[in-house]
């Protein structure tokens, strides 16, 4: 009896050894989970990047999963982290940057590359891209991936119908934009002169960067959690007052929150709409008129304007969770480094229409004449690299930014409705946003 059991045990031990050796022989690639939030063609291009990485080596395998829209993906990643099962990599929209950065749930990419020894130079990225995702000392916290910026889409047919030559029209300043908008409406070129999508993003975040005025103190929050909003400056109030006045005269139509304003452009209702550069796919498919893309305008006489705009879009975060192995971190680092190579980043730029986020792509494509018939891929880049970036145009790091966006939108809507003045709207927005910022600061202790 005793002998049998010993024999059985040694048999088991042998089996284990055999299996162990066998598994070394057929080394399984280490699996890296990647949660993304893009849909449609953009999802296909994302998967193509993953596929390219998986085919380029056999040590790691990135498994990409679609986890819903940006905010759904964020909530999913948070829930997974709380359950101790966070993915290795998660794609997070730009407004979630502060939340992720201060969360303690991530491994900053500069640490990731140091620890794994994978060579990486953060200075390959454009300053406006790098700054958005780095600490003030230049330490990069997340990996830039899909970046867009705000631009002005112009319906050339509507301008022409109002007797304005779209080929020679100058729309560099707001003064010119107001004039053209009014003329388009008066002359019947379109029902509305100008509108915008993503109200807070285009009219406050981008507007502040382009005019080199602060959105919030402490370099828009980059230097600490104690930042306070500053969107009630003289220039901000003047701009809101102009919008209120233009609404009264019919030159401006408010399109609503989120991307609702986009529809006003593609339907032909508004001659000019400020929105994301990533709107191209929809404009290309739906707009039944000639259009051009213009840079965001500025108010004449503003010192240092026009400056670079800032980015939107998303970056990739390496999430920490108990039990991560060195092998897994290695895979994450190599995947990130792979995406940032000139060839992959160029392919991504051309396929998806997002900005070329690193140096070396624009120059190369310019030389090849690639942009000659695709100015919509070139203009956002040129606007993003316009002038020398200042603390006002290097990015935004405010906790609960989605809530702050909603607060500003609520208050300006009440100003459009005539329930309060421009000054009151922005004073209240500042006051309410600061409460949100203090709550975020408190929860980070």
């Amino acid at each position, binding site marked *: 009896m005793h002998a049998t059991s010993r024999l059985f045990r040694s048999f088991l031990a042998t089996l284990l050894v055999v299996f162990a050796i066998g598994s070394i022989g057929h080394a399984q690639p280490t699996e890296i989970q990647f949660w993304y939030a893009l849909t449609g063609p953009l999802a296909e291009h994302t998967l193509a990047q993953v596929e390219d990485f998986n085919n380029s080596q056999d040590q790691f395998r990135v498994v990409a999963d679609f986890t819903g829209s940006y*905010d759904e993906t964020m*909530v999913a990643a*948070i829930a997974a*982290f*709380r359950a101790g099962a966070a993915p290795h990599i998660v794609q997070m929209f730009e407004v979630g940057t502060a*939340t992720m950065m*201060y*969360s*303690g*749930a991530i491994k900053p990419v500069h640490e990731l590359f140091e620890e794994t020894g994978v060579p990486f130079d953060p200075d390959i990225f454009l300053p406006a891209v790098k700054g958005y995702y780095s600490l003030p000392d230049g330490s990069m916290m997340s990996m830039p991936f899909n970046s867009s910026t705000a631009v002005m889409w112009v319906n050339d047919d509507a301008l022409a119908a109002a007797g304005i030559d779209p080929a020679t029209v100058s729309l560099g300043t707001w003064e010119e934009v107001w004039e053209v908008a009014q003329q388009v409406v008066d002359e019947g070129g379109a*029902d509305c002169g100008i509108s915008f999508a993503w109200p807070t993003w285009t009219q406050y975040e981008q507007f502040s960067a382009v005019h080199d005025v602060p959105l919030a103190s402490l370099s828009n929050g980059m230097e600490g959690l104690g930042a306070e909003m500053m969107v009630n400056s003289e220039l901000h109030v003047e701009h809101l007052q102009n919008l209120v006045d233009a609404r009264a005269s019919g030159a401006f*139509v*408010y*399109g*609503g*929150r*989120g991307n*609702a304003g986009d*529809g*006003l452009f593609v*339907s032909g*209702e508004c001659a000019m709409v400020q929105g994301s550069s990533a709107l191209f796919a929809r404009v290309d498919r739906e707009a039944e008129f000639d259009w051009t893309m213009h840079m965001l305008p500025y108010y004449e006489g503003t010192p240092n304007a026009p400056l670079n705009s800032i980015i939107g879009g998303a970056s990739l975060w390496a999430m920490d969770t108990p039990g991560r192995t060195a092998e897994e971190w290695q895979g994450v680092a190599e995947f990130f480094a792979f995406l940032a190579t000139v060839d992959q980043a160029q392919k991504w730029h051309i396929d998806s229409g997002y900005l070329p986020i690193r140096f070396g792509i624009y120059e190369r494509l310019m030389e090849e004449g690639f942009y000659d018939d695709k100015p919509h891929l070139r203009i956002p880049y040129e606007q993003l690299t316009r002038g020398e970036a200042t603390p006002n145009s290097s990015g935004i790091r405010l906790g*609960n930014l*989605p*809530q702050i966006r*909603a607060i500003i*939108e*609520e*208050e300006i*809507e*009440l100003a*459009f*409705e005539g*329930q309060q003045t421009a000054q009151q709207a922005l004073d209240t927005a500042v006051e309410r946003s600061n409460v*949100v910022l203090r*709550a975020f600061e*408190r*929860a*980070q*202790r």
Partner: protein
Amino acid sequence: MQRRTIFRNKFLPYVLLAPQLAITIAFFFWPAGQAVYQSLLIEDPFGLYREFVWFENFQIVLSNPLYLEAVRVTVIFSTAVTFLAMAPALLLAVMADQVIRGASGYRTMIVWPYAIAPAVAAVLWLFIFHPSIGQIGQGLRALGIPWDYRIDGDQALGLVIFVSAWKQVSYNFLFFLAGLQSIPKTIVEAATVDGASPMVRFWRGIFPLLSPTTFFLLVVNIIYTFFDTFGVIHAITQGGPGRATTTLMYRLYRDGWINLDLGGSSAQSVLLMSAVILLTVVQFRFIERRVHY
């Protein structure tokens, strides 16, 4: 002779109840308990920092004038939706009850909207009422009415009330119709013989007999306005313009999901849960007394 089946097994009832109880515990009591617990904490979304603050979240929520504004919006919204969902349903049910030819056709068509998801219903009406691309929206503007729910708070509230009520009419219609059909014809005939006019027959004879159905629908509709109208508001106005359509439920979503303020939104859901429980208890205690079964 009494025909009663008696189960001698003492455990069988519990076994049979277990699946339902398990679902109730897993999907109601446990999350509700979690919400109560979380409402006493201030924590970061990732759960790495946690501070037990007793009732501070409630104090923050209740001292916020914007919360009281949301209470006001919710009261207007719920009252209007409940009334507008029930009154037309009753009217349609009374008329459908009298139709003889093609009755099932009418009924099917009236019931259809109930099969549409709230978000889809919202988008449907959005396309009809949109100021620039919707037929009715354009029509109103052509008549000189400054229709633009993206800016005008009252119009926005009116629109989400209309869409939410429209969705619920079918459900109420079904119950009212079933209620009407269970009223004995003899009562109506007796009233007719006594010379009562159709209005008198309805308000003095039929309506009181419908009261159990009406009461049931009142409770269900109020709960509907609190918990099932999120999709409509989210798709059409996202709580705006300003805060004109921010109900308690929408505010809670925004604070919890977008703002990631778990403590504050849990406190709001505890308050909302208490309000609905209280409302239901009040209805059963005071209104039900006047219901004739």
